[in-house]
């Protein structure tokens, strides 16, 4: 019977619980093209007179999508352990809360 050591990390190629399947170069390039296209759309929307009324929500939407694509694919949060995501979301939530508190305190939204 084979003897097994408790602290044996196992073979080097064995997947560890913290790491998921990372995308390959083709998928990275696809994401980069989408990011470039969204940036081009952002700049285009900025110059369209008819979109002035909805400019801020549109820009925030584009920005959110770009942010999410980079964090989920390039930073691998979609594929790695959720613990990393929890840490990051905690910081992000803190930043958004700080932003809202400052702007509400100084009544930026009402001006």
């Amino acid at each position, binding site marked *: 019977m084979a003897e097994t050591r408790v602290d044996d*990390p196992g073979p080097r190629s064995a997947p560890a619980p913290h790491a998921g399947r990372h995308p390959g170069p083709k998928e990275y390039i696809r994401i980069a093209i989408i990011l470039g296209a969204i940036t081009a759309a952002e700049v285009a929307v900025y110059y369209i007179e008819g979109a002035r009324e909805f400019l801020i929500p549109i820009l925030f939407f584009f920005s959110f999508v770009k942010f999410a694509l980079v964090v989920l694919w*390039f930073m691998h949060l979609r594929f790695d352990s959720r613990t990393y995501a929890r840490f990051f979301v905690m910081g992000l939530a803190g*930043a958004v809360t700080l932003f809202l508190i400052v702007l509400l305190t100084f009544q930026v939204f009402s001006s």
Partner: protein
Amino acid sequence: MATLEHSAAAPVTDHAATSTGLPHLKLAMWLFLASDCLLFGALISTYVLYRGASTVGPYPADVFDIPYTSVSSFVLLASSLTMVLALAAIQRGDVGRSRVWLLATALLGMTFLGGQVYEFTSFVREGLTLKTNVFGTSFYVLTGFHGTHVAVGVLMLLTVFTLSFAGKINQDSSMTVELVGLYWHFVDIVWIVIFTVVYLIPTGSPAGG
């Protein structure tokens, strides 16, 4: 050993066994990035609060050059692509290609920084300095902090690039490239927010104007 065709087969045990099963360095990097979110949250809040509060010009609309800044944004986005390609290459064990992508990332980062220096110089020529008005103060502090982060990232990239020649960066130590990559992508996502909030969202009427 089977041929590794996909970066999914990345070595994932290049760290000591931990109680969480997660590499502590990577966990620490995510914690650092979370704390950096708060720093930039404070700086962006301050900018939004003060950008329309200046009583003297120049105002944002007087100085911003959107096409120029858009090119800078594309440069930084491209650097994120080269960064992940460097990581994918080192995880495949292709040190040479990883080195090329690392250098490309550093060069793109330096291009972005050069663009920022040029932008700051032209703004100063147009009369917007750190002390001109509250828009100038909050703008330079926010974008200056971001630029400093980019500069630190470039130094990290060049360090990893140099270490690769000493044989210290290989498939087994791909975590080093991954950590630098996480920092670099964070710098990119901060710019995504800055580009929208600072440059694209129009400012209301100047205070008193």
